[in-house]
């Protein structure tokens, strides 16, 4: 099964510690991690996903401007031939305190498949990711549609 994932921190955000933790964590869980590091643009995520044939893109945003940075991400994936790719987003996605379901609704509305908060359990995230990739593979759909 294709367990390649693209990881990175989107936008003008240089929080790199969490990014390194995620890289080490998902690698240990058996994923093949393409880590783009910090200050990553939408197109760079998509470029890397195409070349590496990734099953999922995991977007981190820690500085509260995730909504602006992530707007249109799914549409851009579709435009560039990645209709089916699994999109996760997580971090401090908005400024200040907002109810979880409100934040989640905002980002799923943008086309992200799952939304994670800082308090969420990483093991659970890895389990969900593996299950989502499996389901995608079973559906016989490649994430790659040139």
């Amino acid at each position, binding site marked *: 099964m294709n367990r390649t994932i693209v990881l990175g921190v989107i936008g003008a*955000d240089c929080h790199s510690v969490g990014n390194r933790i995620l890289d080490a964590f998902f690698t240990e869980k058996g994923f093949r991690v393409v880590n783009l590091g910090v200050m*990553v643009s939408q197109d760079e995520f998509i*470029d890397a996903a195409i*070349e*590496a*044939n990734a099953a999922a893109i995991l977007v981190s945003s820690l*500085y509260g401007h995730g909504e602006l940075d992530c707007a249109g991400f799914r549409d851009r994936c579709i435009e560039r031939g990645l209709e089916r790719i699994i999109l996760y987003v997580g971090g401090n996605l908005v400024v200040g305190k907002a109810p979880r379901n409100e934040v989640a609704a905002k980002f799923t509305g943008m086309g992200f498949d799952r939304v994670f908060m800082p308090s969420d359990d990483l093991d659970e995230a890895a389990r969900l990711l593996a299950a989502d990739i499996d389901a995608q593979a079973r559906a016989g759909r490649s994430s790659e549609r*040139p």
Partner: protein
Amino acid sequence: MNRVLSVDIGSTWTKAALFDVASTVPTALRRTAVPTTQDDLAEGVARIARELLDLSPDAPLGHALQSTPLHACSSAKGGLAIAAVGIVPDLTARVARLAAASAGGRIAAHHSYRLGSREIAALESERPDIVLFCGGTDGGNETYVRANARALAGSSLAATILFAGNASMRDEVSEILRGKRLVVVANAMPEVGALDIEPARKAIREIYLESIVEGKGLARVQELCSADIRPTPLAVFDLMGTLASASREWSDTLLIDMGGATTDIYSNTTAFHGEEGWVLRGIREPALTRTVEGDLGLRVSARSAMQTGGEYIRRRIGAEEQAVRAWAERAARQTDILPSSPEEQLCDDLLAEACLSHAFLRHAGSVEEAYTAAGKVRVQKGKDLRGIKRIVASGGFLARRGNGGKAGGSPVLRALAAARAQLDERTGAASLLPETAEVLVDRQYLMPLLGNIAASHPGEAARIAAAALTGAAEGCDHA
């Protein structure tokens, strides 16, 4: 072995020099040029060798070449034409171009994503010698690689196809392309952003020797040589590397070779320094790279250069670009033209500056400032040329005008200043161009000729280059 003969076969002129590599002060003893003999390239090479060795026109060469070995490079008959194919324009498609240019190729065509019938038709009419076929990281993209392999298999292309893409696709690609001449090497981009272009460069060199040298009419030249013939840009590329290893003063060097058809830039400097607060995006380029601009040239490519550089010229002189445009038209039609009045010289100068400025901007990376919660961050893309300390100006125009005319001021530095002042319209990014480099002019056009001898005589080549470029080698006899 006291002397070495070096020959550079160009499309119009065959240039050669006789080097003394034994004395304490190695020098270029003599230098000359004859028109390239298109029907039989070896004829011109033999003629020029006899001339430099003071042999009579019908004297046998074999014995003389045993004591004075001959080294040659060639850009005749279209040079080494490579089509570069990749997937994402900023990733493998870019890597393919970089590898092709760094192997001394002329980029005959470049394509990204899927090769459709139009792209295949364009490739077929371009008739490249080699198709450098990249795409996908190892274990990565399969769909585009498979589709492009099939498209190439269904084409009438006679070129050698060099596959330097996704390693997991090797067997399948070999199967699909079994009817073609195929060479498979390690992936040029095994991981996103990580380059490994040496295997592709080495393979291109081998393919050139095995199956291209003969077709270019160079087999008989090869018989005269004591080392393998190389494409001329590869001789210069290798020279850049050799000079830097021979002497520290040649590190952080950039070389421009501006001709009638193309403007080539070679640079040898650390691409990314990783300073505090700097982030690199995209691919990390090797220290030694070459870019070749097929639309920027002063004669054959003067029309496209005018089209690309028109805006530069308007900014430089205001509204009077018509005269430059007319000059470019004439230069494109009559490629051996030389300026015969101060006005024509000014037009040629402006066209050259425009070519230089654009070639600099394309070779250099860029930096964009971003403000984050942790302060200012600089996001770099491409290659950082700020550390370049010397710029070697080579080629016909720069040999004459590299230091500037009577008005003074090198066109290289003017073009550089203009390029530095230019910010990307969309992103506000600035280019990472040389800041305080000195310009050294290759008045005798020795660079490719020194490139020929650099592999066997690196120290001597460095010393001759240093002397010739600083203008101290006035003793060189122009035959």
